């Protein structure tokens, strides 16, 4: 359990291993995540409302087929979790000194952030499964077994993209209030762009930008993952672009991240 032991007058003081620190942090962060009503709404309520609402009345025909409804619900969930929920939670804890308090313990600093990421990825995993189950049971949209697995994996990749965007935002913007405003401003274009990747209704330039935006790439990948379109060169391009976005924004977010309030 411990790696460095310093005997001190009959008692020993030891630095726990990074794995035991990570375990303890994960337990606390999971508890905190489950108790945050905003995060629960962003994680589950919003995607499910969209999933159901886009199938009501004439909306279904206008907005697209069943696969589009699922991918839209997942995209909204992922953008909400990554760019709004995650970045706000990090900024708030930074402002109030939570991170500095954790950093004076022997836990390596990276475990503090990795724990947060793992909890967010877990939330995305649960959200994706819930959306797919609701789609199958209550909305009547079913996929082949391998497509379910593929869709969940793509959702996890998408969450990495949007978490890294959230990390970049929280790295570049010092104040939680400014970050809140910026997150809301980014939210609309990130989701909006994902809607027009397959349509030239707003012109070919918008279509091109939309298709290769983080949300557009995710839409392309989800569509292929669900079997609505064939896996193609564009799918590979979207996969590489998503990986590139993740790396780029993660580097920006880690490079400029400050643990304490500036």
């Amino acid at each position, binding site marked *: *359990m*411990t790696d*460095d032991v*310093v005997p*001190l*007058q009959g*008692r020993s*003081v*030891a*630095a*726990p291993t990074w794995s*035991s*620190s990570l*375990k*303890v*942090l994960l*337990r*606390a*962060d999971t*508890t*905190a*995540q489950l*108790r*945050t009503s905003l995060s629960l709404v962003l994680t589950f309520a919003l995607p499910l409302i969209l999933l159901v609402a886009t199938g009501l009345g004439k909306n279904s025909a206008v907005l697209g087929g069943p696969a589009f409804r699922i991918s839209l619900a997942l995209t909204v969930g992922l953008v909400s979790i990554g760019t709004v929920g995650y970045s706000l939670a990090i900024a*708030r*804890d930074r402002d*109030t*000194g*939570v991170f*500095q*308090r*954790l*950093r*004076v*313990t*022997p*836990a*390596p600093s990276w475990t503090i952030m990795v724990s947060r990421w793992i909890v967010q990825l877990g939330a995305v995993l649960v959200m994706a499964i819930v959306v797919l189950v609701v789609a199958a049971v209550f909305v009547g949209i079913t996929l082949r077994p391998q497509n379910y697995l593929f869709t969940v994996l793509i959702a996890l990749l998408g969450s990495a993209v949007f978490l890294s965007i959230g990390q970049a935002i929280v790295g570049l913007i010092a104040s939680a209030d400014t970050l809140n405003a910026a997150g809301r401003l980014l939210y609309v274009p990130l989701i909006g762009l994902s809607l027009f990747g397959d349509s030239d209704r707003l012109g070919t330039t918008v279509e091109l930008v939309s298709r290769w935006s983080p949300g557009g790439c995710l839409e392309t990948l989800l569509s292929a993952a669900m079997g609505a379109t064939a896996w193609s060169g564009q799918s590979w391009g979207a996969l590489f672009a998503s990986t590139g976005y993740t790396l780029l924004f993660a580097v920006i977010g880690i490079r400029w991240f400050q*643990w*304490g309030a500036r």
Partner: protein
Amino acid sequence: MTSEAPPVTGLALQVRDLHVSYGPKRAVDGVSLDINEGEIFGLLGPNGAGKTSTLSAIEGLLKPTSGSILIRQVDVRANPRKAKALIGVQLQSTSFQSELKISEIVKLYAGLYGVPLTKPAIFDSLAEIHLGDEASRRFSQLSGGQQKRLSLLIATIHDPPLVLLDEPTSGLDPQARRQLWDRIERIRKSGRSILLTTHSMEEAQSVCDRVAIMNRGKILTVDTPAGLIEKHKKDPNVLAVARGQVTLEDVFIGLTGRELRD
């Protein structure tokens, strides 16, 4: 209160020629100090004197420009995790995850120091600081005095040989302050050393065995509170500010100047 100090057996902390800079600004400029085992050592200084920066460097939150810090002969820069296991820290403004209950916060920090605490042990610890009934509440729901007591409990949960307290009694009423002094004295009686920063001359005189006065990043003088008065009572700058018999506050203002600091 300070007459029952245990005999000096060795150094708990050794700081040599410490420099900390924020860009062009030198916050700590060549600070050297030794803290003996079982000693309560106070750092006094006006705002911006470099007290918190000195503590932050010892805690590993700030990277010094140069100098060495040894905690029980463990080099803070070479072995940060081992060094952090040897210290308990109460930051100037501490906050914990707002979603966690008090008992969960105690469990989290005990875990981060590798101390396995059972549920009854957590409640016993909280009862000892008169927070037994507050175990299910959140940190933000506690009064200022309760928050300080909890912070001190967490700082000492792993029985560290050195405890660092940054303005531990600021904002407390006289009753809460006296209670906290008693706790600090009990910590010392259990064989630990304490380094605290304070603006309160009364606190320095009541609690500290030795006191250093800092100004503009440098330590100006070090001695027992009575020794400081004796050493500087004929200093013209001290006499100029004294109103009758020279006090520790007269020495402080005489050495650091009358101008306001932000």
